[in-house]
């Protein structure tokens, strides 16, 4: 059993020489370390925090935000072992095949890999997130909301639930023992990587600089490096390491930090009325499945690939939330419509709808370095946040289609809540699903990493996490980023052999 090392006890100027250094002990870093535990590689897992929250370490995450109101950079993530899974919701769903496609009329879409490249890794990723048996396609037991044929249909979330607890899996707590038990993995806490130093030709990482808040610093000279510090911090580390490549590591084409994305989660986007008042609770609650309490599912409504292609709309996952009030006009709309359709609405009920939306990729939604510095002397970040009117308009089209399908099935009807940008923005929350800042591309000019998650042109530097997502889909990222990380693990086994 290797205990966790504490970087504060590593003497200054020490040089450590593992085969592989993993920067960051969130779900990406932990999944990768465990996947390579038996590979024969000596692995140093460098984690900035300890095993619990510490305000001084968390303060290293602070930055500035401009543009559309967004979550402060030190609020939407956690800087200690397990990373943001220490406060995640556990909502999980694989990306869809269309998410990887080049979509006509939607610029900057198209990954250099397909869903089928990830599929072999989903079973293990699902085990790691403790999402229960794979039932996304089959769905849950229960009565689906009757919808006429059309562009929107019921789809499924599953939920992470850690062993013997109602909480989602906190990767740090859950896998600490496994990390300690792996003889070739050395997890090191309080170890902040502050710079990536390249060889003079810029083609290899020579060393990482590590510092602690207690004041000591040392070096790591690994054969291979994987950055797994989360989509915001990975960009910061690359941009701030600008001695050999003046614009930052891997930033020869000015792509690092661009295309930042999240899932907008506007509240109360619509009111849905069901004429007979009957809606299976699987739509409103995360529901343990009968005889299988570890399988927790909830239904949502999403646009089909055909509708997305035909209408040019992005992905979205609409959820049914709370019982909703109906004002006089709403009541009149329901009475008049139900009567015209010949349906009894005397037991009608209304619910508010929520959603997670996909954003259109935007190079101007980006992270850059600011003039401020943190306690370790690293430049802080500035996030410029944008969201386009098209994103709202597209999602509105999807909701209107859902409304049409409800009417055509004589099931119910819908009221769309917002039709101005100001209304959408006033209702806005965010998923804290940071993505896209080191996007994957076949062509180095349009991205930062290649199909194997290697930083274009730097043979021993790789990235794990949702920063490599080329586009975002509407699914929550963690299951998918863990699957991609496991794929990277397989690739590393080959290239390090």
């Amino acid at each position, binding site marked *: 059993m290797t205990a966790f090392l504490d970087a504060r006890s590593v003497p200054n100027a020490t040089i450590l020489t593992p085969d592989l250094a993993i920067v960051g002990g969130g779900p990406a870093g932990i999944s990768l370390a465990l996947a390579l535990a038996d590979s024969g590689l000596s692995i140093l897992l460098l984690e900035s925090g300890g095993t619990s929250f510490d305000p001084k370490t968390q303060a290293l995450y602070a930055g500035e935000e401009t543009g559309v109101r967004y979550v402060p950079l030190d609020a939407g993530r956690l800087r200690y072992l397990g990373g943001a899974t220490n406060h995640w919701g556990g909502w999980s769903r694989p990306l869809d095949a269309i998410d990887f496609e080049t979509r006509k009329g939607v610029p900057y879409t198209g990954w250099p890999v397909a869903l089928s490249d990830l599929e072999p890794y989903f079973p293990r990723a699902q085990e790691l997130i403790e999402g229960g048996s794979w039932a996304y396609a089959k769905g849950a037991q229960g009565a689906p909301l009757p919808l006429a044929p059309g562009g929107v249909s019921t789809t499924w979330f599953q939920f992470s639930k850690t062993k013997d607890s109602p909480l989602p899996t906190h990767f740090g707590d859950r896998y600490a023992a496994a990390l300690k038990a792996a003889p070739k993995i050395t997890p090191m806490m309080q170890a902040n990587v502050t710079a990536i130093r390249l060889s003079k030709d810029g083609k290899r990482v020579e060393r990482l600089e590590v510092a602690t808040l207690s004041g000591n610093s040392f070096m790591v000279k690994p054969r291979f490096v994987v950055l797994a510090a989360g989509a915001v911090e990975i960009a910061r580390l690359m941009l701030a390491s600008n001695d050999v490549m003046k614009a930052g590591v891997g930033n020869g084409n000015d792509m690092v930090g661009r295309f930042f994305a999240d899932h907008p989660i506007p509240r109360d986007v619509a009111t849905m009325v069901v004429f007979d008042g009957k809606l299976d609770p699987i739509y409103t609650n995360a529901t343990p499945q009968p005889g299988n309490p570890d399988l927790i599912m909830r239904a949502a409504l999403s646009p089909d690939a055909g509708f997305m292609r035909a209408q040019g709309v992005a992905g979205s996952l609409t959820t049914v939330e709370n019982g909703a009030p109906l004002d006089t006009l709403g009541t009149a709309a329901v009475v008049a419509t139900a009567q*015209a359709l010949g349906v*009894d609405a005397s037991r009608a009920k209304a619910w508010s709808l929520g959603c997670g939306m996909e954003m259109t990729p935007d190079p101007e939604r980006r992270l850059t370095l600011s003039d401020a510095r943190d306690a370790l002397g690293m430049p802080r970040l500035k996030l410029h946040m944008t969201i386009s009117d098209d994103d709202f308009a597209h999602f509105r089209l999807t909701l209107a289609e859902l409304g049409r399908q409800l009417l055509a099935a004589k099931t119910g009807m819908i009221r769309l809540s917002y039709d101005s940008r100001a209304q959408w923005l006033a209702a806005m929350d965010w998923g804290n699903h940071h993505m896209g800042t080191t996007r994957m591309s076949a062509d180095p000019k349009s991205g930062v990493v290649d199909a194997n998650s290697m930083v274009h042109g730097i043979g021993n530097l790789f990235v794990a996490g949702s920063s490599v997502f080329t586009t975002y889909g509407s699914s929550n990222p963690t299951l998918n980023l863990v699957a991609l990380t496991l794929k990277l693990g397989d690739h590393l086994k080959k290239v390090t052999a």
Partner: protein
Amino acid sequence: MNRRNVMAGMGAALLALGAGVWRFGMKHYPDTPYDDLLDQVQDREAAATLGETTRETAPGLAARLRAAKPLAVQAAADAGAGRTVEISGWVVPKSVADYAALARLNRPL
């Protein structure tokens, strides 16, 4: 029960009221020249509340509706074919909106 639930309860009660009218007998309204059309609308008050002001005059609108299929047939066909309109965000079949507009134009003062 929070404020929201109270309001939701009120909405449900209002719905029950409208539906009750529909179930237990037609209300009586003052005569209009368009009763052949408006008799297809069981709750004219609800329809008039939903109805938006329209540029069409009552005779023009009525002529158009008389030339179309009866409301019950047309509403289902509109929904199936995606002929829907939005009234303050409510997505309704076009024919429902038309009949609601006619009810509004003929709302007793």
